[in-house]
């Protein structure tokens, strides 16, 4: 069940074009913070949502955007947008029901690990995702296992645990909509997010 890389690249390009909202492939051109302020809760007016419970809307940037906080330490270099550099790839894809990093993606994970080793103040979040099949909370578990398997590869290379955060969204943030294998294989993924903490 190996992914055809050309097909995948094409599919990802299609995703850019169709602007698949907040879970699109991380585009380095989005560094301008254009999506800031999308965080926080809406529609609190009619039901008295308790804001003291932590709704704040301003503490983090919207998804699909990174490198905007933490000053110079978090700004990413040109290598992240060079398509020939593995650092330009920040999504790791998985096969059905598996959390094992496929051979094709080992160099990508290794490149990010090297970058983190060289930049110990840099922090990433590994976002685990699954396809829509099966039950939702089980898929949250599966997404976390995927993120953890990427994290443990990085740690083996010496990356500090404190540089890596993990969150699993299960099937709740699909990169591709659709009910076929083409969509599913784009959704079984871990996104490496350089968004600052």
């Amino acid at each position: 069940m190996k992914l055809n890389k050309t097909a995948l690249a094409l599919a990802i390009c299609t995703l850019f074009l169709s602007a698949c909202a907040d879970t699109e492939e991380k585009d380095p051109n989005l560094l301008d913070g254009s999506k800031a302020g999308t965080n926080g809760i809406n529609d609190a007016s009619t039901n008295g949502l308790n804001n003291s419970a932590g709704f704040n809307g301003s503490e983090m940037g919207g998804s699909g955007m990174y490198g905007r906080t933490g000053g110079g330490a978090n700004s990413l270099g040109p290598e992240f947008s060079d398509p020939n550099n593995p650092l330009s790839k920040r999504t790791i894809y998985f096969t059905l029901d598996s959390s094992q990093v496929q051979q094709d993606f080992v160099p990508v994970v290794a490149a990010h690990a090297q970058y983190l080793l060289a930049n110990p103040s840099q922090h990433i979040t590994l976002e685990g995702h699954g396809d829509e099949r099966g039950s939702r909370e089980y898929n949250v578990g599966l997404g976390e296992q995927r993120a953890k398997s990427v994290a443990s590869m990085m740690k083996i290379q010496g990356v500090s645990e404190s540089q890596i955060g993990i969150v699993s969204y299960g099937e709740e943030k699909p990169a591709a909509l659709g009910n076929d294998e083409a969509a599913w294989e784009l959704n079984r993924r871990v996104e490496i997010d350089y968004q600052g903490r």
Partner: protein
Amino acid sequence: MVFLRNLLLIAWCCIYTPMTFAALTIEITEGVESALPVAVVPFASSGAPVDISAVVNADLERSGYFKMLAQHAMPNRPSTSQEVNFKEWQALNQNYMVVGKVNNSGGQYDVQFQLLDVYKNGQLLGYKMASSEADLRRTAHHISDLIFEKLTGKKGAFSGRIAYITSSGSANHQLQVADADGFNPQTIAGSPEPLMSPSWSPDGKRIAYVSFERKSAAIYVQTLATGQRERVAEFPGINGAPSWSPDGTRLALTLSKDGSPDIYVLNLASRSLSKLTKNMAIDTEPSWSPDGSSIIFTSDRGGKPQIYMVSSQGGTEKRLTFTGDYNARGSFSSDGRNIVMVHGSGGGYRIAIMDMATKAINVLTSGPSDESPSFAPNGSMILYASKKGRTGFLSAVSLDGKMQQKLVFNSGEVREPAWSP
């Protein structure tokens, strides 16, 4: 009891801006063959803003148990049993009929109705009830419940409410609660980040749910009447799948703070946490037995997800499902005799029930991507989420699989339905 209900409703209406449009339209995709012919005669009314008899007619029709007589086929419109000429209705092959009237008495409404047996020329039920204007739809659903129970012997579920998650666009997620007929949708919480897994407290006053609004998972408990909410779990990693204990004092939930996802029980008053499972596999989706003694959950410790059971005090875990390569998100019927779950085989996911005594599995739906099943409070229907193309919608199926209803949302995706207790 009715007084208390009215009081609650008044409180509800003070807080929420009532909306009276339907967010859901409900289609009956399959009904029982032996549907009972019933005529709900339009009630005599002095200007009530809600057509009570129309709401009752729609409720009964939606249940699939009854064949409703169209208004234009009615020979006349009696509003009390004295005005009924039973021979006329016998000639129309009606088994039962409902007549009634609504009188406005200074802002309050007096609603009276009678359920009549057309062949025995007699009254089966007769009620007179007072209702505020804001309460009229609920009064109508209450009447439907009374009629349904009298004619089928099963409790009606028309007064219940349904919580569900809906998205319009990928950055607008809402937890909503609507009446069981889709009217009065209220937004309970909204977030640009996902919301998941709504679970009603046994008294129907609070909902626990998962929110990613802080870019990580946390579990909240929100009181519907006040909108007050409390974050009850925000540990590193997964905070998921909250499920209320039948006595309302505890939540079973999934946490991965110690490594892999395990099942915990959180005492809501003391906030003490006890860990029920310790396993390297994914353990998640806990659900209590009705007597509170045990908890069923999903685990892939055997390779594929299957349903297991453990005492709610902890102890030996026992595998329950052996048929099919994927069984997940189990929950009990209120009598504890059956569990309903997502059953996967051959690449499709369907809703199935398992008899706890015989362990026999009965597949109720055709898939291919059915999920999030739960029993209606009356135990006669199962509510679940389905997908067709990009649209997610809710469906209900009877326990024998013979009756199906589809609840179609006007826009956006609807998922994770939960029927109020």
